[in-house]
């Protein structure tokens, strides 16, 4: 795994991190770009995420969050640039990269006709778990996401919150070192949100986690670092605490940075 100049993430420059490698960087994204025709959805995005970090991925709708996550998960081929998970390039070594990754796609898609257990058993088998181990993994993932009560129900009969948790359970099944979760708390009630945040907090020390969210309080609650992305570009990369300096709320920072789109990056915070 490439490693170079180490930097305490808390002291990192507020500007896009560029090519700094953290010592234990499990996610490395370098100059990632995605173009759809003439439209550039993700424009030269670079960052790394180390073990123990929880990165909050923020930005207005259509800013390129999901596209970046899809490229990181190896679902969408990048137009330019590279993404590596635990040192495995997602384009050149897709299977190795995906083994180290737990991914919750946008909207938490699942097969509606399958039961919760059936679906998770399927994912466990694809991930190479057999027999008793597969059974234990599924039971453990269901316990983490509190799905035991609905284990035999067809997924299509579940509420939105349960469906989201089935998707989450699938991502946690193999205890991956890297978690990429696209809006993990969308559609959950406040109790469930709290539960999922606590779960992310508990897992954080041993993993590199990226979550995208629209809920800014969530960034405060669980993230050690926040990236704000707008029009496909990273405009801020800093710990949430630092963004809130000078008594401004995160929401204010978000609005300042993303409403004046096209403005010079980080005018306020860099000062």
């Amino acid at each position, binding site marked *: 795994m490439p490693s170079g100049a180490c930097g305490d993430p808390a002291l990192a420059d507020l500007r896009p991190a560029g090519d700094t490698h953290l010592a234990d960087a499990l996610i490395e994204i370098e100059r990632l770009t995605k173009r759809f025709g003439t439209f550039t959805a993700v424009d030269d995005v670079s960052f790394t995420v180390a073990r123990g970090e929880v990165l909050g991925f923020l930005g207005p709708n259509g800013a390129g969050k999901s596209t970046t996550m*899809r490229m990181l998960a190896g*679902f969408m*081929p990048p137009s330019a640039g590279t993404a590596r998970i635990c040192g495995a390039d997602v384009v050149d070594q897709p299977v190795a990269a995906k083994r180290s990754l737990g991914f919750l796609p946008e909207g938490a898609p699942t097969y509606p006709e399958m039961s919760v257990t059936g679906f998770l058993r399927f994912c466990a088998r694809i991930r190479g778990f057999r027999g008793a181990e597969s059974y234990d993994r599924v039971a453990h993932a269901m316990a983490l996401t509190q799905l035991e009560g609905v284990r035999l129900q067809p997924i299509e009969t579940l509420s939105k919150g349960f469906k989201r948790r089935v*998707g989450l359970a699938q991502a946690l099944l193999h205890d991956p070192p890297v978690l990429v979760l696209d809006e993990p708390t969308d559609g959950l009630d406040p109790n469930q949100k709290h539960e999922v945040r606590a779960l992310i907090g508990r897992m954080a020390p041993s993993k590199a986690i990226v979550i995208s969210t629209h809920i800014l309080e969530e960034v405060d609650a669980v993230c050690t670092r926040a990236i704000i992305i707008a029009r496909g570009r990273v405009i801020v990369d800093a710990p949430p605490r630092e963004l809130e300096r000078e008594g401004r709320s995160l929401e204010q920072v978000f609005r300042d940075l993303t409403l004046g789109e096209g403005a010079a990056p980080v005018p306020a915070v860099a000062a």
Partner: protein
Amino acid sequence: MRAALTVAGRELAGYFSTPVAYVFIVIFLVLSGALTFTLGNFFARGQADLIPFFSFIPWLFLFLVPALTMRLWAEERRLGTIELLLTLPLPAWAAVLGKFLAAWVFCGIALALTFPLWLTVNILGEPDNGVILTGYLGCLLVAGAYLAIGAALSAATKNQVIAFVLAVAVCFVFVAAGSPIVTEFLSDRIPALAEAARALSVADRFNGFTRGVVALRDIVYFAGFIGFFLFLNAVVLDHRKAD
């Protein structure tokens, strides 16, 4: 391979947990039976064989198999599960092969359920059961060829109707290529093309199987045909999965 079998198992269970399987099987059995006894003159021929049944299979599958394959990838796209499936640690070919195998086994089940016809000829006469077996093998290979075409086209388009119509059209080309109308037309004008058309025809190869002939070149043809379209499926899927 294990991953492919896991995908196949899930798919096959999926067929039977929705009405798709039952509608397909019932319609297939009703149509194949009706055609055999009416247009096929099953009784009036006075021969103990399943030729009347087999002769309709390429034409019946022409419409039923694309109906099965049109949803293969389009449905994954609609549900968004394609993103889940293709971010699990399995190579794309395993997903392609798994889906194909499930659909193929399903066609095999539908074919196996025509066993009352086989019982009937065995009660009424003394058919050559070897020929019947090779006939069924031919049916399965035709189903496999159509499935491979349909699956590749399903990966190429989001729209199920387009996938269905294109699959019927392409399958039709491969059936009709060997029919006398086409080959006679071609041999009058471009003899070289007539040979090529006959060599590519699914129906021509299939007829060998219904006569009890299992030629190595026909097996190689079907294996190559299915392999080619599955490869195409994997390429198209890789190219268009995120569209």
